[in-house]
């Protein structure tokens, strides 16, 4: 009974939540582990969820909590960021898999660039940027998820965008062809 309920609630949101877990972990394999751990915890605590309509933010909140616990535990991860390289190497582009619709080497390169840029952000800004820019969440939804004010979320988004911009500008200095303009 509980498993059926969980299955029904999870199916519409699992794709976004899995992508979010991968982005906040900065590594596909770490993200998959994080997502599995969050699912197990969510399944165990499902009885405490009173309103099924709140399942999505509830699940994302668990993903964030598990991620922060794991980050605190794995002290060495702060210094050895193997995840970025692993993540970057494990893309359709790297595998030469261009059969997927909407996909091309240019799109793969764009996605890889965005992933590396996101990896430079602090966790709270990365969470905000991923949910707002990629998952399409609204500011007030983000504020409710994190338990902070809307202005705090806007501030995080602004700081995150500024960091992304700085990353891209630095890359543009080193690689003028990036934007198609002379530096």
């Amino acid at each position, binding site marked *: 009974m509980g498993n059926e309920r969980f299955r029904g609630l999870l199916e519409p949101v699992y*794709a976004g939540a*899995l992508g979010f877990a991968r982005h906040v972990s900065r590594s596909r394999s770490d993200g998959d582990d994080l997502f*599995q751990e969050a699912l197990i915890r969510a399944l*165990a605590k499902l009885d405490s969820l009173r309103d099924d309509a709140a399942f999505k933010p509830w699940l994302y909140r668990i993903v964030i909590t598990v991620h922060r616990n794991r980050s605190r535990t794995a002290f060495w991860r702060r210094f050895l960021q193997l995840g970025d390289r692993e993540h970057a190497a494990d893309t359709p582009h790297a595998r030469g898999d261009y059969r997927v619709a909407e*996909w091309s080497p240019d799109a793969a390169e*764009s996605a890889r660039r965005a*992933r590396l840029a996101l990896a430079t952000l602090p966790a709270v800004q990365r969470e905000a940027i991923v949910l707002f820019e990629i998952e399409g969440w609204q500011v007030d939804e983000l504020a409710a998820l994190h338990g902070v004010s809307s202005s705090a979320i806007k501030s995080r988004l602004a700081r995150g965008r500024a960091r992304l911009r700085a990353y891209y500008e630095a890359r543009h200095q080193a690689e003028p062809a990036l934007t*198609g303009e002379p530096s």
Partner: protein
Amino acid sequence: MIDSLISTDLAALAIEDRQRVPAFDAVLPQPRDKVRWPIKRWLAQAAPVAAPIVAVVAGAGVLAALDIHTFQESPQLAVVIVIAIVAMLHALGGRARAKPGKPVADVIAAVLITGSAAVFFLAVWHRHHATTCPFFDEGGVFFGPCTDHDAFTSPGFVAIVWAIVLIVARVLASRVRVDVARWGVAAKIVAVAVLLTWVSVNQFDDSWIGVAGFHAYKPPPNAALLTLHRAMARMFDWPHIGVELSPSQWDALAAGLAMLGFAATIAVACVRERARASRWLTFLEHPAVTPLAVVVATAALVYASAGDDPDITGRRAAIACVAAIIAYGGMLLRRRRREALS
């Protein structure tokens, strides 16, 4: 230009995310195989409760059967040994993931054991200090405290009450849905601290079976109780209690207060802990705390065994109790950390 490039790249990343999502069934946690033997499931639920009960009761029984003088004087040391062994075993196997416990059961158990201890303590106190029964022998009728129910204060009785309380708490916890996760560790410590204190204050003189405890007076063997009803009541005779508690009982009470104070600090720290980890809890979670406290408890226990004076033995036993509770608290907090990560 940079901003549009960022937007394009993020859009490409969103598309890549959608393309790389595995099938829904692949991400679901796989259900466990169906339990073929229902007895296994029953054992899996009962064993975590039954094992400590069996360990404590068997440990206390074996030590009492060995007729060791120290354990007759201070039966709480048997419980201390069991706690020290459990804490050490957890410390040795410390990296395993822990299954979340049932904080509601722990809180209910703490309330029930505290209530039971208070009720039986007051009942015995009342019988020994606030009742006077008429006896008669060859010399005629005389009056003394009604001491015909000493069984309430034996360690065996305490162990049985404790076991019943744990089982009742487990059953009640399955029907109660209250979020008391923050109180779980403190409740577990309170339950064990009350158990230790209850056993400790009961012991008196050289007899642990007839541990009526608070009154040196015993009717002569050939005296018969004339009537069972209370003849004269002397309620709240405080100076009388002060005189008749032995020094080892005072030490046991002081140790009990220290243990409950320790539990209170953990409760406050757990309740106040929000975004940042409490420094007190972080300190107690340190891997060195449990082994160090176990060493102190063991040293106090061995030292207690070496003494001949029951009062000195009682004091060393009190130190052993406090050290064992600190070891137990450290073990529980480390276990709580593993539960959070499991």
